[in-house]
């Protein structure tokens, strides 16, 4: 029944060292971004809720390695990593977290609504599972327009119990659309262990019951994620219809920066820390003969870049208040009846 085939890790296979070094760089940039976002929140610079993806970087990096710049990506409330990996401008993103001018959304959206249409990133979403149907529609649109851009939709393990998961996957398969669904399974939905609220064997079985091929992969092994994503995306591109990738990973931080996550066994966290996706990739590359110094450079470059970005974002002005009234709609006066 639980028929998701497993792609084993890439260790031992022929490694494409350049490609993986790029992935390492991406992962370090995500890690640095998230750490600085957490710091920014402590300092009152990042506003609203921040959902860090520390520990989950291999999913973003591994999937997006296989996407074209003009492919489409939809994400979740925990979307910084995906957005960076898709190629969005990190300074604009940080400015958005700080609510500043020049943010990806002009400061109107914040962390949960980051989008960068220039790189095909169609948005985080504050509503769990909502992007699944929107992704189906984006793929539908590409079909109608005769475009070969594919759509990738990432969602969490908690999202698979909401109706749009069923409706969106069914839709994608009925219309045989070019979509890759990625379940980024970090074991928790907010403070709840997702398995306790999830009937049956899980996301892959659900996808298969809808006729959508599903593959489960170690989501902390970027080599494996890359390989599985490549296979699934090749299938999508070749017209085989929607595919699903189940990436098993772990949320190292609390649900938000405000969540101490006391409901978890510290031993569980420790165990997963040992499976840090960045360290694992570095080990793999070193074992393959890469020079540790080169890898350290990736790290150093990422933090240097992000520290600069942090400072630049902090020094950016607030957006003009007129922005509160723009981009609402063409018709009608948004100030109507205002105070």
């Amino acid at each position, binding site marked *: 029944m639980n028929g998701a085939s497993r792609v084993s890790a890439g260790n031992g296979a022929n490694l494409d060292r350049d490609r993986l070094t790029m992935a390492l760089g991406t992962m370090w940039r995500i890690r640095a971004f998230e750490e600085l976002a957490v710091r920014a929140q402590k300092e009152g610079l990042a506003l609203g809720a921040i959902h860090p993806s520390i520990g989950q970087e291999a999913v973003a990096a591994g999937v997006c390695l296989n996407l074209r710049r003009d492919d*489409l990506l*939809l994400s979740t409330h925990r979307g910084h990593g995906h957005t960076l990996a898709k190629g969005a401008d990190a300074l604009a993103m940080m400015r958005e977290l700080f609510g500043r001018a020049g*943010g*990806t*959304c*002009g*400061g*109107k*959206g914040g962390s949960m*609504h980051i*989008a*960068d*249409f*220039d790189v095909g990133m*169609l*948005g985080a*979403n*504050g*509503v769990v599972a*909502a992007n*699944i*149907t*929107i*992704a*189906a*529609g*984006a*793929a*539908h*649109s*590409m*079909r*109608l*327009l005769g475009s070969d851009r594919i759509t990738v939709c990432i969602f969490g393990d908690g999202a698979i119990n909401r*109706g*749009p998961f069923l*409706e*969106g996957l*069914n*839709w994608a398969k*009925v*219309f045989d659309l070019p979509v890759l669904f990625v379940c980024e399974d970090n074991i928790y939905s907010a403070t709840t262990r997702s398995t306790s609220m999830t009937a049956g064997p899980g996301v892959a079985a659900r996808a298969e019951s809808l006729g959508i091929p599903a593959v489960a992969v170690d989501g902390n092994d970027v080599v494996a994620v890359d390989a599985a994503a490549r296979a699934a995306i090749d299938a999508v591109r070749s017209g085989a219809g929607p595919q699903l990738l189940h990436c098993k990973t772990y949320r190292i931080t609390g649900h938000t920066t405000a969540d101490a996550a006391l409901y978890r066994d510290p031993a569980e966290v420790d165990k997963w820390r040992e499976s840090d996706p960045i360290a694992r990739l570095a080990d793999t590359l070193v074992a393959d003969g890469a020079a540790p110094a080169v890898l350290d450079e990736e790290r150093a470059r990422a933090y240097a870049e992000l520290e600069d970005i942090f400072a630049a974002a902090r020094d950016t002005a607030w957006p003009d208040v007129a*922005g509160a009234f*723009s*981009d*609402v*709609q*063409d*018709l*009608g*006066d*948004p100030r*109507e*009846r205002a105070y």
Partner: protein
Amino acid sequence: MHKLTYLEAGRRALIEEMRRDPRVWALGEDLGRGGVFGQYKGLAEMFGPARIADTPISEACIMGAAVGAAMTGTRPVVEMRFSDFALCAIDELVNQAAKARFMFGGQMRVPLVVREPVGMWRSSAAQHSQSLESWYTHIPGLVVVAPSTPADNLGLLKSAIRADDPVVYLEHKALWPLEGPVPEGEHLTPLGVADVAREGRDLTIVTWSAMRHASLKAAEALAKQGIEAEVVDLRTLWPWDRDAVFASVEKTGRLLVVQEAVSVSGFGAEIAASVAEALHHRLKSPVKRLGAPRIPVAYAPPLEDMARVTPDRITEAARAMCVHAEAV
């Protein structure tokens, strides 16, 4: 001018716009066989199943997919069958379609039209009779349209499809068979502009959708009693035509809002409150709203009729306003 039904006018609008713009497509349940009321009859044959798309019974996904499609370069026309079923897709419409452009800082637009047949239609009962236009007028980002005549269903639907905002387009089920004159050539009714359906000096009736016709009947009865009612059909509820309404009330000094929806927190409250705020000193009598009681719509006709605003009820209310004012 030739004659078309309200239903055929909507159908013609969609055909014309789909011919004009290859990015326009329609999606909804049973569209391939013409849709539940026949509004899409023959369109699948004309445009093919990709552009007249049959869908699963998945209102949330119909709406969500339309949002995704509208964001990415096509122009979906969503069919919700009964406006009541749109309640299965409210997150998609309100949290997503209406807000996306703003949240994302204007990176894109969401040019979609949601067709939601509304209103009482004999013995359709509580889950197939609602009129929730006031909800949508409350949501930043949405345009709300409620055509009442064949010509307007042609001209407004075409304008709605051309608009770059998400438009909630409320056709009234009881009006499908209504015949009326429709221009033969290209006909676009501008959004946001009311139609003065009848001129009059004594009181202003502001209304929309099927109540236009009840109001016109009432106006005839009132005329026989020497009261000349001006009937203003809003056509677009957001943005509504303040200028037309205010000009009329300045002239008549009396405002009666007539709506089919539940009166409490209905859109009539917005009109009445706006006029009371702005034109208090010009009013010869207090503003007044007519609408349904705060009850679900019942199945049995005599009970259902208790939820109806009828020409008689309009006539009576209008007369009371005029008579009363003279007595004051």
